[in-house]
């Protein structure tokens, strides 16, 4: 029984992998994202500049040159080195925040759809609240209370961005719940927890997966924005933090394009690759969209 299940799962994953490979959009997104993930993991081990050491006064705000390929910032630090160590921070925050968000969204969505009635009503009103509240002011207020550390930023983004997932998961749970195999397991005496984790979760999972990619894109953007507004962790500079320093030091009026362009371009590339993947996954798993 178990081996059949595993074989089926393996085949499904393989099928999915091959459709990703044959879908140009998904392939481009995956390659770009993989590049940044590799840079984030291994990059900081090989960069020759220390990102926290301030440079000499004559190194300040240098345009790109032979020694500093992307120039230096207003503290004389190498931009490329900062960019590489920023990749780690930005991606880490993005991934962990997405994990929290998906966890909460799935839990609330499944419970709401499965239990129905009063629990559904209460959980959905809470979901409505998080859906309708403008996300940036909410995050700003929460981050301001909790203080600036990357763990707080992760928590704030995770706790404010789950509502969309909960809605989608609830709708799917409602339809899975009505299927016969659930009825059969109930008559065999399965408890609620068993049904939710063993029968409903695997069936809503593909949906969660496609959603995750889009949440990750939003999480990276949120982190960048919060850091730009001065709510980032000053000891661990993400791309958003670099943009914050660039703005505060007046890089725009000094026309120091090498300072404010690269971190933004990195953010755009990562978010874009997530968006492309999300778009393609939707296409693969949702045949209705195929003709688009």
């Amino acid at each position, binding site marked *: 029984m178990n081996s059949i299940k595993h074989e089926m799962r393996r085949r499904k994953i393989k099928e999915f992998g091959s459709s990703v490979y044959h879908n140009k959009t998904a392939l481009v997104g995956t390659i770009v994202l993989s590049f940044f993930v590799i840079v984030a993991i291994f990059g900081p081990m090989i960069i020759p500049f220390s990102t926290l050491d301030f440079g000499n006064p004559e190194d300040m705000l240098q345009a790109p040159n032979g020694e500093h390929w992307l120039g230096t910032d207003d503290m004389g630090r190498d931009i490329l080195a900062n960019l590489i160590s920023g990749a780690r921070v930005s991606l880490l925050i993005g991934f962990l925040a997405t994990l929290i968000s998906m966890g909460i969204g799935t839990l609330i969505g499944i419970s709401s759809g499965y239990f129905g009635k009063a629990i559904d009503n209460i959980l959905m*009103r*809470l979901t*409505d*609240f998080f859906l*309708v*509240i*403008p*996300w*940036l*002011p*909410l995050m*700003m*207020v929460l981050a*301001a*209370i909790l203080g600036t550390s990357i763990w707080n930023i992760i928590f704030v983004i995770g706790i404010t961005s789950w509502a969309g997932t909960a809605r989608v998961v609830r709708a799917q749970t409602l339809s899975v719940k009505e299927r016969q195999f659930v009825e059969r397991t109930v008559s065999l005496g399965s408890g609620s927890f068993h049904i939710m984790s063993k029968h409903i979760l695997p069936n809503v999972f593909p949906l969660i997966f496609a959603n995750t990619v889009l949440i990750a*894109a939003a999480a990276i*953007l949120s982190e*960048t*924005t919060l850091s*730009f*507004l*001065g*709510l980032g962790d000053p000891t661990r500079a993400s791309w*958003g933090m670099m*943009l914050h320093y*660039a*703005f505060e030091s007046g*890089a*725009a*009026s000094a*026309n120091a*394009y090498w300072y*404010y*362009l690269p971190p*933004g371009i990195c*953010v*755009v590339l990562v*978010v*874009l690759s997530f*968006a*492309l993947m999300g*778009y393609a996954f939707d296409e693969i798993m949702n045949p209705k969209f195929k003709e*688009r």
Partner: protein
Amino acid sequence: MRRKFIIKKTMYAIITVFIVLIFNYILFRILPGDPLSMIMRNPRATPEMVDTVSALYGLDKPWYTQFIMYFQNMLHGDLGMSFVYKSSVTGVIATKILPTLWMLGMAEIIAIIVGIFLGIVAAANRGTKIDVGTLGFSLVTYSMPTFWLGIIMVSVFCVGLRIFPVGGMQSPGMSFAGEGAQLLDILHHSVLPIITMSILLIGEYALTMRNTLMDVLEEDYILTAKAKGFSRKYILRKHAVPNAMLPMITIIAINLGLVIGGAIQIETVFSWPGLGSLMYESLSARDYPLLQGLFLLITISVVLANYLTDITYSYIDPRVKD
């Protein structure tokens, strides 16, 4: 049917506003920003002063009485005192509403017109360069941090090309010029923030319009119209577009949260004297009462706007059930 719908939506809106109030109240207590903390900072504060303020804001009463008092104060428009401005939060906020409304209103109008137009063109020419270009444009603008686009705009148009003035809403001394010159000056300052804001929105509106229009074009009544021999253009204008407009209303309402997030960033970059840059200032200065007041105003406005959209929508499209 509709009555039931309206009652349900009204209930939900009231519940959401209530959650906002409770949430805000709890934050207000956790924050180091209760009215006493300001008095405590003053080294010459006497115990009598502390007692008076405690009594004024009901801090000596049990929590439920405090909540009711907080609620009453808010209904009277009393949101406390700003740490930085040393005056009432309501008064500080009131002076900043108009610039934000002007900026957002103009940006929305431009974005809706351009977005709908682009969406129609893309859907009518599916698969062509225009369609792919529209898709690419909306994907890239979606992926771009709003403030970053603002920084680039400032750098290119204000610093590089020197076409537009840097920052603010008025040049210094312009308040002494004639009314016409003053208005022109404000317009000149408004161009870049408005354009930046609308670029942020156009992609989303164009994409929504394109996708809905494509769905509508597959409906049976479009086929009927084709069979009747109407021209492509006529069908598009008279049959498809009006039906595709409906979801646009919803997407504009749903986008309000995004618009406000964008306003905070754009106003900060352009030092536009509105609610967004006030929010940034209050955050940087940790002016908690002001931050709370702004948060309350923004969230309740968005909840109300969404509620009104739902109700309006039920009149425009009688099919809505949930």
